[in-house]
């Protein structure tokens, strides 16, 4: 079985460039944690930590029931899979912060891409454009759906439609640096989503 390790929740701050060993490195800054452990799941086949991120004062009644054992209420709840050994180390109410990661480690970052609305073939599927002049009338249109020989349009045929706002994981991002007093992680390269969007960082 693939080893599953620790993770944390965070918010994307934005991108910048820093110098490392006389080289310019593009980095994304993520404000990560501190997260509180709400629940520890220790089943036969599934071990996980349920984490809460961003403290709030008020929540509706059904949601606040989740935080009965913790005492504090949180806006974002997400689970991070861990192995049985790690899960047994934590208990409800523990705090997880950026120190679970170390410099140079590889992580996977999960987030939601920017929503692009209803978009055409060129933006959504990288289709090429038809001629704009000489009476072509086929500027940015989609091509043919099917032929009489193939039969009706097959399911999964690429067409215009809603694009973006989907869950995407970027794998093997290197941690360039950690600033513990500001709860910030700098990873090399870009991550999905706009600024201020919630992301999950998991050890690779």
């Amino acid at each position, binding site marked *: 079985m693939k080893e599953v390790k620790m993770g944390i*929740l965070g*918010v*994307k*701050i*934005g991108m*910048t*460039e*820093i*110098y*490392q060993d*006389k080289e*310019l490195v593009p980095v994304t*800054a993520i*404000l990560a944690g501190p997260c509180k452990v709400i629940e520890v799941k220790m089943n036969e086949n599934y071990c996980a930590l349920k984490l809460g991120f*961003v403290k709030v004062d008020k929540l509706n009644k059904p949601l606040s029931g989740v935080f009965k054992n913790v005492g504090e209420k949180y*806006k*974002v709840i*997400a689970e991070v899979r861990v192995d049985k050994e790690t899960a047994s180390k934590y208990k409800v109410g523990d705090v997880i912060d950026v120190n679970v990661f170390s410099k140079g480690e590889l992580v996977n970052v*999960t*987030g*939601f891409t920017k*929503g692009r609305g209803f978009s055409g073939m060129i933006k959504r599927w990288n289709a090429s454009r038809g001629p704009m002049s000489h009476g072509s009338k086929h500027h940015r249109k989609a091509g043919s759906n099917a032929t009489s020989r193939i039969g009706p349009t097959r399911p999964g045929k690429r067409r215009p439609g809603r694009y973006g*706002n989907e*869950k995407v994981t970027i794998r093997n991002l290197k941690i360039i*640096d950690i*600033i513990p007093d*500001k709860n*910030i992680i*700098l990873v090399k390269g870009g991550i999905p*989503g*706009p*600024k*201020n*969007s*919630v992301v*999950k960082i998991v050890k690779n």
Partner: protein
Amino acid sequence: MKRMRILKVVKSPDKLLREIHEKYLPSKKELNFKVGDIVKVHQRIVEGDKSRVQVFEGVVIEIHGPIYNRFFTVRKEVQGVGVEKTFRINSPNVEKVELVRNPLKKPRRKKLTYLRPE
């Protein structure tokens, strides 16, 4: 995490980003030249395991970018061909910028793009 959530945990992420950026600058270099000056830029060039310093002398035609990430463009003419190079002030490879002389007449523009031929 079932859908996209935008949380304003930080009031202004850009301000925080600038603080982070400033932390990693090698050393804050002061600008000792202006647009229109003639400067000598000493740039370290690494080729394999050897490194040398190359000097580029010309007119500063442009300075742009925020304080923590500033660029400047130097232009000179070599055998009738215009050559322009853009440097980062904070780059560790730009060892020093030497001021050769000020312009005879102070330029009235921010960018001296008129020095470029047609």
